[in-house]
């Protein structure tokens, strides 16, 4: 996902239902001023990717879309991490696992979780 798409999606997670103009205003408030055409294009892409939903709202001669996130932030991020890890484990399993273990070993709590998990694996293997 492009950084701009993630920025727009973050605004959607934060505020729920928004029009294109509101998304632009929120981004502007965060120090990311963008043209309406750009925000509209990005939201359209997110819609085509199935990450946001939209409906048409008509009032006073104005036709506009109202967008809202289709995927929760946690769900999206979990999917993103799983995808990344699956890809790494598929192609570079050994360095990925050893690096993860290295990182976990640095923290006492993580080390304990890791050793418990290894014990469990050993027990299962004996059976």
């Amino acid at each position: 996902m492009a950084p701009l798409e993630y920025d727009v999606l973050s605004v959607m997670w934060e505020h729920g239902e928004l029009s294109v103009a509101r998304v632009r205003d929120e981004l502007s408030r965060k120090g990311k001023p963008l043209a309406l055409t750009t925000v509209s294009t990005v939201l359209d892409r997110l819609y085509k990717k199935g990450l946001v939903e939209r409906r048409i709202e008509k009032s006073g001669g104005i036709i506009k879309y109202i967008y809202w996130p289709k995927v929760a932030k946690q769900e999206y991020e979990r999917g993103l991490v799983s995808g990344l890890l699956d890809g790494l484990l598929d192609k570079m399993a050994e360095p990925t696992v050893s690096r993860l273990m290295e990182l976990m070993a640095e923290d006492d709590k993580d080390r304990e979780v890791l050793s418990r998990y290894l014990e469990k694996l050993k027990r299962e293997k004996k059976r």
Partner: protein
Amino acid sequence: MNVAQRAVQAMPIPPWDHLFTRLFWHAVIDGHLLMASFLISSVALPLSYLAARLDKRTGEKVLLLAMFLSSVPLLMTPLSPLILSHHLYSLVRVLLTHDFWHDLVIIERISRPISRWARYDPEFWVISVAVAALGVHLTMGSRVRKKASIEPPVWLVRRVKALADKMGVRAPKIVIADSGEPFAYAPISLVSGRIVLSVGLLESLERDEVSAVVAHEMSHLKHHDPLKHLFVRTLRMVAVANPVAHLMEPWVSRNEEYAADLEAAAVTSPHWMISALLKASGVEFQSAQGGLGKTLLGVDRFWMKPEGKIARVFSEHPAVVDRIENLMKLVDED
């Protein structure tokens, strides 16, 4: 000679055989077509129609892909499905007679001189353009019909009517495309004029700017630019080896854009037209912050921004900066 072979020998050569063989050799000799192109054009369009009827989103994707894939062979030799059926007819003859070379030599002897002449044959050109126009009309028409569920706002219809009176043309039908991407275009239409505007465009531009964009598209319709463009494109595809044809299409297209900009600016305002161009190209004045908000994503579907000099020669749309410079003449005159 067995019964089947005798039957094949007795098969009459149909009157349309000459046309097929002529076109077939025209295609082969000039290297315009590949067998794959015949298949794509014959299969892609009906498939896309079916997909569009089943599911809107999948249909759109298949339709766009089919339009892209089929436009090349369709515009190169619009009679490709007919040529394909001739291939099948020849294949049956060859398979049954087991005399491949004999059959080919006969076809070649008959068609070679005719195919040379076919290049200058007005009938070939007329049929090519007519079939290509029909194909594109049906494809574009289907795309437009699918997106016609959103009613245009009353103010827009009124403005279109007023602009049509001002420009001395019949008011075109406004079709709102269900897309957040900002775009506008006048599809090729043999029956009535239509202008397609996306929801994204209506959301992104002010009413006056939308009017300028509509006037721009109306100018294209008034001067039959979509049809002219199709003709020049067909010419380019058929005369694929001619470099002039390749330069001609973008040149004609760019001139159409400049002319449409000027006419739209004259009936609306050059300021609205310039403002619409700036916004649509992803640059927007942000008066509240007093500066220019530049974007990373330019909207390039109808307002492409080629940078280099060479790109400008081959581009069908002039650079936004050139279009604004063209419009500034009107501003200076004021």
